[in-house]
């Protein structure tokens, strides 16, 4: 083990020396030295859970699992799904799916990837007593239960390369989901000792972990190319070294010094400088992240007709254009709906979206009208978790509300995310609070159903609208995505009238990269497409 550590260290030293040599040689690196064996150094964060696909729900771990596993489909940069392990995914009624996988594929331990690898993995992930964080992904499959152990009866292995899925209801976007981490296959060895597997997973993806001890907690994880992978995501580099940073600022400093190749998130404090620090080597494009603040449906003064007026007034009192320009230096795109511009079906001009535009006169008018129903008392507060860098924009939003409506308005910080989430989950929170949603898979429904459907899992404001629920259900029953999206857009019209949450903006993906790497493109999920990056 000692020897291996030494090798790793000297490799880093060598990489550092290469960067230095590149710097001293002059501005332009020689194009001929591009090699497919160079390791790309990228930023990451310590995974918060073991590396089991059905238990990985945050970006730190997802960045690793998405690269060491290959699912039925993967997503291109624009979010469109392309078959990876799957040969075909077929349905006639949007409820029963037949999935065929490519033959001859192998896990890195030599075990074959079969229909059973998928079915067993999904059964494991869905089983109640396995308490997997991603279990809710399987809720639409027949047999799923949230409160007792019950096998997914909707899954059937037909032969070694074919299985069928029967859903509880019609769901048009089911195939779109299959690229998400939760739907990855697992080798048989995983089920023998899941704890050991989670510390050193065996996958079938474009990369594999360098050695059983490659995950150095809180330091980094090394991935190397998996030679057995034959799918469409063949890496154009020699591997990934994912360095875990405690803060984005630290990663940014490393990128500036040249020891990091690709940074996928520029810290807020450097938004004013990053384009000059890395001229021509930055990325700033909309991503599938929607930011808002939720006004709980039972909050005093925010119910009934008065509430409707106040919600509109608050929304029109927020100067989204100015805040995204000044506070975020143009790295957020002002919201015009409840989804994201990178998702197929997004529309800029939904009827009723005028309420998302800054309009002080109309805002004051609506507020005064609400005061006529019942006079305003107290202060309008927006709660946030103080450990997530939200203070600047919350202050700017509340200042905007305060200056426009002439009411007292301020941020209400909670020290930890745990405390913040707990008061939201318990419904003990007595103020508005920040909410955000990053799509799991690129579909309009994923931005709507889980958040605003009556009693949905992430409906933190307890919004309920029969009209909205009906439109969603209708949309899900469609077999083609385009006609489903039309209905989802109509459903958003209901939201725009009720404003269960006040949409703010879409987070852009802001990245930067060093001089030695090229072809850095970001996927729809704001993670770089690492397999395409080359270095030299």
């Amino acid at each position, binding site marked *: 083990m000692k020897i291996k550590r030494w090798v790793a260290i000297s490799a880093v030293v060598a990489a550092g020396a290469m960067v230095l040599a590149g710097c001293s040689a002059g501005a332009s690196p020689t194009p001929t030295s591009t090699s497919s064996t160079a390791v790309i150094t990228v930023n990451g964060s310590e995974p918060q859970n073991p590396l089991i696909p059905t238990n990985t729900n945050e970006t730190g771990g997802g960045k690793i699992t998405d690269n060491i596993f290959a699912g039925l489909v993967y997503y291109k940069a624009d979010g469109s799904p392309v078959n990876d392990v799957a040969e075909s995914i077929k349905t006639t009624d949007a409820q029963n799916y037949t999935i065929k996988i490519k033959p001859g594929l192998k896990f890195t331990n030599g075990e074959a990837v079969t229909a059973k690898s998928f079915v067993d993995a999904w059964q494991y992930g869905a089983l109640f007593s396995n308490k997997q964080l991603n279990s809710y992904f399987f809720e639409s499959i027949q047999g799923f239960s949230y409160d007792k152990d019950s096998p997914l009866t909707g899954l059937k292995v037909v032969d070694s390369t074919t299985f069928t899925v029967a859903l509880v209801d019609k769901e048009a976007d089911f195939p779109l989901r299959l690229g998400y981490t939760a739907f990855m296959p697992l080798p048989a060895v995983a089920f023998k000792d899941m704890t050991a597997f989670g510390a050193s997973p065996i996958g079938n993806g474009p990369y594999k972990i360098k050695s059983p001890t490659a995950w150095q907690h809180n330091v980094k994880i090394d991935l190397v190319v998996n030679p057995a992978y034959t799918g469409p995501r063949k890496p154009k580099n020699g591997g990934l070294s994912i360095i875990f940073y405690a803060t984005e600022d630290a990663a940014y400093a490393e990128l500036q010094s040249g020891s990091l190749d690709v940074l996928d998130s520029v810290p807020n*404090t450097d938004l004013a400088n990053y384009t000059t620090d890395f001229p021509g080597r930055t990325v700033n494009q909309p991503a599938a992240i929607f930011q808002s603040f939720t006004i709980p449906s039972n909050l005093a003064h925010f119910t009934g007709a008065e509430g409707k007026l106040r919600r509109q007034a608050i929304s029109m009192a927020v*100067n989204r254009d100015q805040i995204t320009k*000044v*506070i975020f230096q143009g790295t957020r795109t002002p919201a015009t709906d409840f989804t994201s511009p990178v998702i197929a079906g997004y529309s800029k001009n939904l009827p009723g979206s005028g309420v998302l535009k800054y309009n002080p006169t109309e805002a004051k008018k609506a507020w005064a009208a609400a005061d006529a129903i019942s006079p305003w008392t107290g202060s309008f507060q927006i709660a946030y978790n*103080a*450990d997530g860098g939200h203070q*600047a924009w919350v202050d700017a939003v509340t200042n905007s509300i305060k200056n426009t409506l002439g009411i007292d308005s*301020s941020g209400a910080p909670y*020290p930890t995310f745990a405390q913040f989430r707990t008061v939201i989950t318990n419904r003990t929170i007595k103020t508005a609070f920040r909410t955000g949603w990053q799509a799991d898979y690129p579909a309009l429904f994923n931005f709507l159903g889980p958040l605003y459907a009556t009693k949905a899992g992430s409906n933190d404001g307890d919004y309920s609208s029969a009209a909205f629920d009906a439109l969603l259900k209708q949309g899900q029953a469609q077999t083609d995505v385009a006609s489903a999206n039309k209905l989802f857009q109509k459903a958003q019209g209901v939201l725009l009238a009720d404003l269960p949450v006040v949409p703010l903006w879409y987070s852009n993906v802001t990245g930067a990269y060093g001089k030695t790497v090229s072809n850095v493109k970001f996927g729809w999920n704001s993670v770089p497409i690492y397999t395409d990056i080359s270095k030299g």
Partner: protein
Amino acid sequence: MPSNPPLSATHFVAPIDETPLLGVDTVSIAARKSNLYLDAWRDVRGRPLFYISGAIILLILVVALMPKLFTRIDPTYCNLDLSNGGPSAAHLLGSTFQGCDVYARIIFGAGTSLAVGFIVTALVTLVGVVVGAIAGFYGRWADAVLSRVGDIFFSIPYILAAVVIMSLFSSARNVWTISLAIGAFAWPSTARILRGQILSVKNADYVTSATALGVSPSKILLKHVLPNSIAPVIVITTIGLAAAIVAESTLSFLGVGLGSGTISWGNEISNAQGQLRTNPSSLIYPSIALSVTVLAFIMMGEVVRDALDPKARARR
């Protein structure tokens, strides 16, 4: 004795006015009273540094108590149109990232910051001196118990204390709760330093002679041991005042500070941290205000420490 016979009458040798040496042996009771603290006060009054630091402290106290005398700008009015704006006639020191007036926020922040500084310092010094004095002077089991309690308290990371205390009082975050968060676990440092100093002082000759004369232990501690070991405590207390004000800033940086609803120097510094490269002046001005305040208190501490040290006074 109904009436005092004249002194000369009781002398059997030469009359008193004939022996000029008598002055050597008499105890002068008519001269001014000698008392450590009184002497210190007399000494302090003759030093220019006392007046300079005193004037600064007085000014800062006036600013803290009556900020409205110094500015008419509403410190809570922030407008993004003015974000990171430079100095102008309306905004003397420019504007912050959120577009608030830097000068007004410094003026209005003085009260909170000073309050945090004073409360923490008072808490830490009070507990630290009592515990340190008892542990060092009485020793034995008192020392063992108090020192180990100090160890427990000191080993608790202040960030844990801050998160716990600020979370428990999340609805009532004010200078008292944050002072408690900073001070509750900082006193063992003061206690240990005083204890160490007392250990070395309590074997001094003047303590031994006082004991021999039958002076009670508590009187020895208060009259002899404490004044002679207090110097390092004064030093760390004056710096500690600064450290407490700065700690408030660090807690804000970590997200467990007073929150943006409260104006304080620490909050201003923490908020300006992100603008280090684009608008450093919004960071520098509150830091200067903090430095000047701390300087005044350190100078004052210096004067007091000198005055309380009879040996140093004797040399002057």
